[in-house]
């Protein structure tokens, strides 16, 4: 539910970083927070456990500046990845305008990636949302790890990207792919507010 105020020409969108535990969702937000100048961001809020696992969500508000004359703001959320936080994930997903699925590229995490991806679709369905209609990009994180520990992007694509959505290879800890992922989901979300697709919603 992007909020568009035509009178004051403001757009606000909610983007949720989703994925299995320890895949790098919070790391994405930390990297973005570290890159963006202070006048374009708010405080990063992390509701986390004592061991820094996300308990409820991380939240980072961003001011993207003016696009087509509209002051555009993004609210970036992460969900807790651990399986037992299912109810929390569902709550955070409510009203999302776009989703970044952060997959862990490690071979041994493939089953968790698939389970989390199915969980995403189930939670969207519970909100009455057709997952095929939600702007989605996939980020294959941790591609910087040694080759014998990770799956190649082509294989991850085969396993996860049956919808053929935009996907990005990333090393969220050091930055590569984080910017591209944010740009990708931003384009998809804002495209829904452009004349090419907005009328068809």
């Amino acid at each position, binding site marked *: 539910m992007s909020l568009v*105020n035509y009178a004051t020409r403001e757009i606000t969108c909610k983007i949720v970083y989703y994925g299995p535990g320890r895949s790098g969702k919070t790391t994405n937000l930390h990297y973005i927070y570290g890159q963006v100048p202070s006048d374009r961001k708010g405080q990063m809020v992390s509701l986390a456990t004592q061991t820094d696992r996300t308990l409820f*969500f991380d939240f980072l508000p961003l*001011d993207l500046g003016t*696009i087509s004359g509209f002051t555009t703001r993004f609210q970036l959320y992460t969900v807790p990845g651990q399986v037992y936080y299912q109810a929390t994930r569902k*709550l955070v997903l409510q009203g999302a305008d776009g989703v970044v699925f952060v997959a862990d590229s490690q071979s041994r995490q493939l089953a968790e990636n698939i389970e989390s991806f199915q969980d995403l679709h189930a939670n969207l369905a519970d909100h009455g949302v057709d997952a095929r209609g939600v702007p989605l990009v996939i980020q294959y994180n941790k591609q910087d790890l040694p080759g014998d520990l990770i799956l190649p992007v082509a294989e991850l694509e085969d396993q996860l990207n049956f919808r053929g959505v935009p996907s990005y290879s990333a090393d969220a800890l050091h930055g590569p792919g984080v910017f591209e992922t944010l740009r990708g989901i931003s384009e998809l979300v804002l495209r829904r507010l*452009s004349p090419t697709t907005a009328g068809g919603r």
Partner: protein
Amino acid sequence: MRMSVAASWVEAPLKQFVDDARVHYAVLLHPSGQVLGQYGFARSVDVMTACALAAAIDASSRALGMLVEGKAFPSLHYAGRERQIFLAEVPAPGGRLLLLAVFDWESSLGLLQLYHEEFRARVGEMAPPIAHNAPAIAADFEKELNKNLAVMFGRA
């Protein structure tokens, strides 16, 4: 008055509530954390943070209410040493909304509850059903988006 609204119908009832209840901050938001209107915050990013946290409090307290009482708590109140927080639901034609208010000794919980009732009634009268967004931005918005993102990330 530091008021901003994302939907024009919010302004009149929110202004009335602020004036009547004498609050420092007041935010009307969707349970997903999207702000519909606010009074008191100077920075938009702070409003978004307040909304995200209020939505989280609402979601978790509803779940807690269901667990211990079999129904969601309709409102919450926190009394700090200097400031107090009041969070309550506001039914609207398009679905439930939330009102977050912060006040001090110039007001009271009783006043908040009283004027919250009036606010609910006004919102019920004035809020339109959910409307889908009409086209807002130009078809070729990508160039501007990419430029803004590049500036944010120091790549310009």
